[in-house]
């Protein structure tokens, strides 16, 4: 056990004991299961003599969190033992993750089990969020609890779908394809003219650092209210990163490789397709990944400046005005999931296409 694990184990056991005492003092109520889990937490201090499976730590954290969530609605504001128990279970979760990660790097547990770790982390955040918002009776117009957001999410599926369709499937995807596609083509055109390349590359680099999001009102003015103006913002935002990365990628092939093609008296297009584009693939994917997050942001912000009454940005700004903050968060959850999936798909594609690149080969 590392030093950190040592301390975590001691503190987790100690806080369990504290929570147990507070619970007894509070007068049990019907919290027998909770008392049992806390008692188990105290028993875990025995690990220093007997050993204790890391899965047991995980189980304490999991069942403890479930019991807390079940007990929560009936006790607002939450009593002191509740907070002590929350801290205890969080510490067990942390300890579990520490130990699991250690076991994986020591190759004692399969690599793939590692996905639990970020899930535990995310779940812990949600539980703590729920506990604080509900347990401290935070006004829901300021911060709704996850449970309320979830309820809103499942009850507003048709609205959310319509918004998703408008913003993501139309504005984002179309803008993304046009922006990335034209950035790529222009890069290839420019690449043939060293003059243009020297003139445009510094400018492109410069423009990609600018707050392009500021063109959103202009695009709405030019392209109207519906999704084309949002797609236009996405096009402008994604164009330059693609341009700059593709140009950089096209000069990424090694001198030796280019000399090799020269010794074959290979033509421009042959060298382009057989050497330079494959070598540029990692750069192009880099731009595709950057752009996947930029595109969503651009489309949503553009919807603040005038839109038909559907779309994720529209919904967010309107529902903030109506104080339906749960709906706002539901929309944000959809955006986050859509964004992560979008990013993930491109990352997978990247792995498949640039399978040969050391960064992919290496795992």
């Amino acid at each position: 056990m590392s030093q950190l694990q040592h301390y975590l184990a001691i503190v987790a056991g100690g806080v369990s004991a504290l929570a147990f005492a507070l619970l007894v003092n509070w007068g049990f109520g019907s919290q027998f299961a909770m008392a049992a889990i806390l008692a188990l937490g105290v028993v875990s201090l025995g690990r220093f003599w007997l050993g204790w499976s890391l899965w047991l730590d995980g189980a304490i954290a999991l069942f403890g969190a479930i019991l807390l969530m079940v007990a929560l609605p009936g006790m607002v504001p939450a009593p002191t033992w509740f907070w002590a128990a929350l801290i205890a279970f969080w510490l067990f979760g942390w300890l579990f993750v520490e130990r699991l990660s250690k076991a994986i790097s020591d190759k004692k547990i399969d690599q793939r089990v590692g996905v639990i770790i970020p899930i535990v982390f995310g779940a812990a955040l949600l539980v703590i969020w729920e506990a604080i918002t509900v347990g401290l009776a935070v006004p829901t117009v300021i911060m709704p609890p996850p449970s309320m957001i979830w309820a809103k999410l499942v009850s507003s599926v048709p609205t959310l779908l319509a918004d998703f369709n408008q913003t993501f499937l139309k504005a984002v995807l179309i803008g993304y394809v046009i922006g990335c596609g034209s950035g790529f083509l222009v890069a290839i055109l420019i690449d043939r003219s060293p003059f243009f390349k020297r003139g445009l590359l510094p400018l492109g680099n410069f423009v990609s650092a600018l707050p392009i999001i500021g063109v959103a009102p202009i695009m709405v003015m030019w392209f109207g209210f519906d999704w084309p103006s949002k797609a236009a913002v996405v096009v402008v935002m994604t164009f330059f990163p693609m341009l700059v990365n593709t140009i950089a990628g096209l000069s990424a092939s090694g001198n030796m490789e280019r000399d090799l093609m020269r010794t074959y008296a290979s033509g421009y297009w042959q060298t382009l397709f057989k050497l330079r584009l494959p070598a540029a693939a990692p750069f192009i994917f880099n731009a595709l990944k950057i752009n996947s997050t930029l595109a969503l942001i651009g489309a949503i912000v553009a919807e603040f400046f005038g839109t038909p009454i559907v779309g994720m940005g529209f919904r967010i700004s309107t529902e903030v005005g109506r104080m339906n903050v749960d709906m706002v968060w539901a929309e944000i959850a959809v955006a986050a999931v859509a964004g992560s999936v979008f990013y993930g798909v491109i990352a997978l594609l990247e792995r498949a296409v640039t399978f040969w690149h050391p960064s992919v080969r290496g795992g």
Partner: protein
Amino acid sequence: MTADLTLDQNARAVSSQSGAPAAVVSARGLGLTFQTNDGPVHALSDVNLDINKGEFVSFIGPSGCGKTTFLRTIADLEQPTTGTLSVNGMTPQGARESRAYGYVFQAPALFPWRTIEKNVALPLEVMGYSAEERAKRIQGTLDLVNLTGFEHKYPWQLSGGMQQRASIARALAFDADLLLMDEPFGALDEIVRDHLNSELLKLWARTQKTICFVTHSIPEAVYLSTKIVVMSPRPGRVTDVIESTLPAERPLDIRETPEFLAIAARVRDGLRAGHSYEE
């Protein structure tokens, strides 16, 4: 080992009929100066050299003396600033465009996204060979370098020595009878290197190509060559051209014979003369 071998032999037959050995590479007063930020660098100056058909010529000299530059000039990858250079009786550019040579770099420079087979196919694709012809040649040259069975591996799945052999196969796949090799075995360990050296000698004997070979290793140069060109540091000049007196048949332990050691000593003296230790 089929079409290209036959072609090679025809070529030989023609050249030998013409009497005197034909100069495949011929440099006269060749000079090359790089313009850099710190002023001009004279990489080559007044190089005079003839390389005849079927010779195995090694270039040896201290680091930075211009060996690579000379090879690159032959390959039309650099333009000479003074003097003349002809390759197969043409300008270097003409020779490159008629695909007169194969070039093997110090690093294998295989494309990591292509399998070994596809890497060897690369020059053939560029030069427009038919799919059928390609398949035949790939098989033949991979055989020649002992890589049969590794067609579908990717370069990173092979050891350094195997990668270097694949890059040689790639240079052999098309009909060039001049082979330019720039420290092809520099990165390999001594034993693998010994092995590839003797394989290269056999290949040379079989195909009768003309080979220009850059190396840092004295034993390697002596073991392989019919002619050793010793170069001095910048401005890169040829200080000695040593014709090997070793027999054509060279087992590896020829390297312990007095004759071998005598040639090696002469090369070493030539080298040491031009070397600054503080470098």
